[in-house]
């Protein structure tokens, strides 16, 4: 029989596992969090106030008959939960976590937008963690992820309520720069909201779209292929 009966993993799992493995190598531990989240962990604690235009930056699914709950719009909710738990158990920074997981946006779908997609979020907090460290970690990540290619990154000013300063990070593969992720130094309000002293501790956070990485790595042209239960995508 030539037809084989080997199992296989979804390319998104392969990409997620690889990203996690690189970040673990760079000193991060893996944390997970819930997909239905209260507004405190998804918004307020992340310095996204109610009735503020910053809240519109994400198109949110609200849960019916469960006021104050949403489908998480990012895996950043887990930052907050991790830090709250750390403080509750008497712990302190330093720490570094990555959070892979599914997130949701209430928007119409096309080849690059899905209502559900996957993110890996990173958070590193210590007494002396800098923007230079953020750049170092992200550059090293992309060097390992796109191994054998010439890659570089650059930072542009941007805004996300939970960081200050905030950056858009562009990745260069070959001669082309593409906008790839958001990052920044964690806003002191976010640390404060979790009970961590922002005068002593500082660090960075970032969020990378895993579907996007999958599409880039495997040259898959349409984000929607991922979630159709179609085995033709398991080619790797």
């Amino acid at each position: 029989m030539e037809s084989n009966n080997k199992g296989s993993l979804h390319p998104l799992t392969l990409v997620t596992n690889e990203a996690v493995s690189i970040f673990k190598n760079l000193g991060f531990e893996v944390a997970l969090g819930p997909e239905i989240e209260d507004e405190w962990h998804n918004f307020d604690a992340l310095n996204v106030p109610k009735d503020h235009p910053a809240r519109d930056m994400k198109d949110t699914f609200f849960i019916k008959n469960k006021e104050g709950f949403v489908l998480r719009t990012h895996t950043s909710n887990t930052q907050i939960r991790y830090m709250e738990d750390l403080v509750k158990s008497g712990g302190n920074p330093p720490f570094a976590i990555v959070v892979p997981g599914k997130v949701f946006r209430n928007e119409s779908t096309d080849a690059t937008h899905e209502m559900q997609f996957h993110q890996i979020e990173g958070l590193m907090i210590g007494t002396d963690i800098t923007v230079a460290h953020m750049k170092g970690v992200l550059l090293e990540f992309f060097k390992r992820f796109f191994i054998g290619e010439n890659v570089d990154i650059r930072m542009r000013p941007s805004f996300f309520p939970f960081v200050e300063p905030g950056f858009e990070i562009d990745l260069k593969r070959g001669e082309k720069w593409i906008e790839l992720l958001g990052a920044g130094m964690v806003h002191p309000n976010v640390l404060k909201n979790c009970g961590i002293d922002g005068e002593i501790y500082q660090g960075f956070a970032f969020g990378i779209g895993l579907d996007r990485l999958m599409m880039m790595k495997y040259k898959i042209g349409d984000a929607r292929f991922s979630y159709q239960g179609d085995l033709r995508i398991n080619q790797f």
Partner: protein
Amino acid sequence: MLISYKWLQSYVPSIPSVDQITDLITFHICEIESVEKISNGDTVFDLKILPDRAHDLLSHYGVAKEISSLLGLQFKEIEYKTLISKATDLKIDIETKNCRRYMGRIVRGVKIEKSPEWMVKYLESVGQRSINNIVDITNILLFGLGQPVHAFDLKKLDNSHIVVKNAKEGDILELVGSEKLKVTLKSTDMMITDGKNNLAIAGVKGGLLSGISDDTTDILIEVASFDPVSVRKTARRLSVLTDASKRYENDLSSTLCDKAMQEISSLIFEVCPGALFEEIVDIYPSKVDERKVIFTTSYIVKNLGVNITDEAIEKILKNYNYDFSKSDGGMFEVSIPALRLDLTGAHDFIEEIGRAYGYDKVIGELPSIDFERKDSSVWGQISLAKRKLAEDGYREVMTYAFTDKGEVEVLASASDKNFLRNNLTDGLKESIRLNTLNLPLLDMKEIKVFEIGTVFVKDSEEIHVAYGDKKNVVEMSLEKFVKENVPHEFEGRSLKDSSQGPSLGFKMWSSYPFITRDIAVWVPINEDKEKLKNILKELGTDLLIKEPTLFDSFEKDGRTSYAYRLVFQSYDRTLTDEEINPIMQKISEKISSLGWEVR
């Protein structure tokens, strides 16, 4: 926000070229969505102004200030005409806490005409149609300075009296604009009234009746500051999102009103030199305090990770025209300009200094961080379960969390599937059905799939594992699966990471139907097995979507029978039997010519 290069140039006469400005904005201010040269000779930038700077950069004034400060170029303030004003009867009362300031001024004897050419061009650059001189001036203020202003036809008011107060529940107002939109108000909506009638929804849009028309002669200018949340709630509830409401909801400094009143008065005087200006009435209940921020050079260095000097910081602050003092040890005390509402603490100066200095000067370095790592046990379980199922011959799929029935519903989905799945089985069965149709394309004997993901039941969510085939699908919690199905020796081994090297390419599938043909051939027993396969590949043409699959073979009387399945599919059309039959015919002929036999 559309920004005109020529309009910027009016503030920064020595502004560099479009190309240079494009880079400057991108790497030091904000993202540019597009740069377009337009037919009136101007170049227009579409800037993505984010909420932290929407209070001052949704304006040419604000963007020009940034450019001149970053480059240390001279900034040219508009020179206002000196006006002589007469006593006024205008009375303004504020009866709500959501109006922070209201400045009014009556101007009599204006003439509604066409606007001067420069105004028409500026407005055209930012996509606004010229209407008449007075309406255009209010738009010049909106897009130039970033302050919404409004002009009422004074004669349509009951008397020279403005009262800012909340609407009566159920009031109806017809708004200006071609849509003739009538809105029903709530008691939480802040209104501009003349004491009797509603004239405008504060910060959102004016009413039709009090609007400027061709025979307007006397006007009342409104320059005001409103609470952002109040304006936002009303605008959103009514779905009347205007350029004015967008600016108010992002918070505007009340101090901007002074400048705006001077500028609008000056512009009206310019287009209507015969107009008579009355005194400004300024009700300003909540003045803003002066704000100061203290930071040190070492704080900036400690956050950016760049060795920036006191002198470099001093130069940046000077170019930005900050009022500041510097003391020993690199400590800076900065008076925050009233318009910079985003600067609230030392942390904001990491960005303010960093982006002016240049983020390209940040050199990446790897941190060393020491703490006790403890990966999520759920993550470990997911990895184990996936590996176990893959080793047992199951292939992983992912399906949608959204379905058309379930226990948890989301509000206002962009799709028709408003529920969250409460099981994986339904999705997996659908996946099995779909993949079974494609079985000949998949190199599998039978479809065996699994999914691991979150399901949502009333008041909780749980990670499930589901796996199965055409006959049966099994679903259980992740914990139970790992406990019952993953042997201990599995745990030490790590899951294979992503595949092989960098140059992997995904092969897109065709969306046209495929055709399968089976062929069995008797071949002498000592014949090279590959020879038949190569003939099939060669004569099967490019329409063979995959390698021929051997699905049966046996030996008898010195010969071997090989049975192959051929799958034909085109990327650009539906194949027909008429197209495939000749291919099969050629294959048979070739086989006969070798003395083999098609069974």
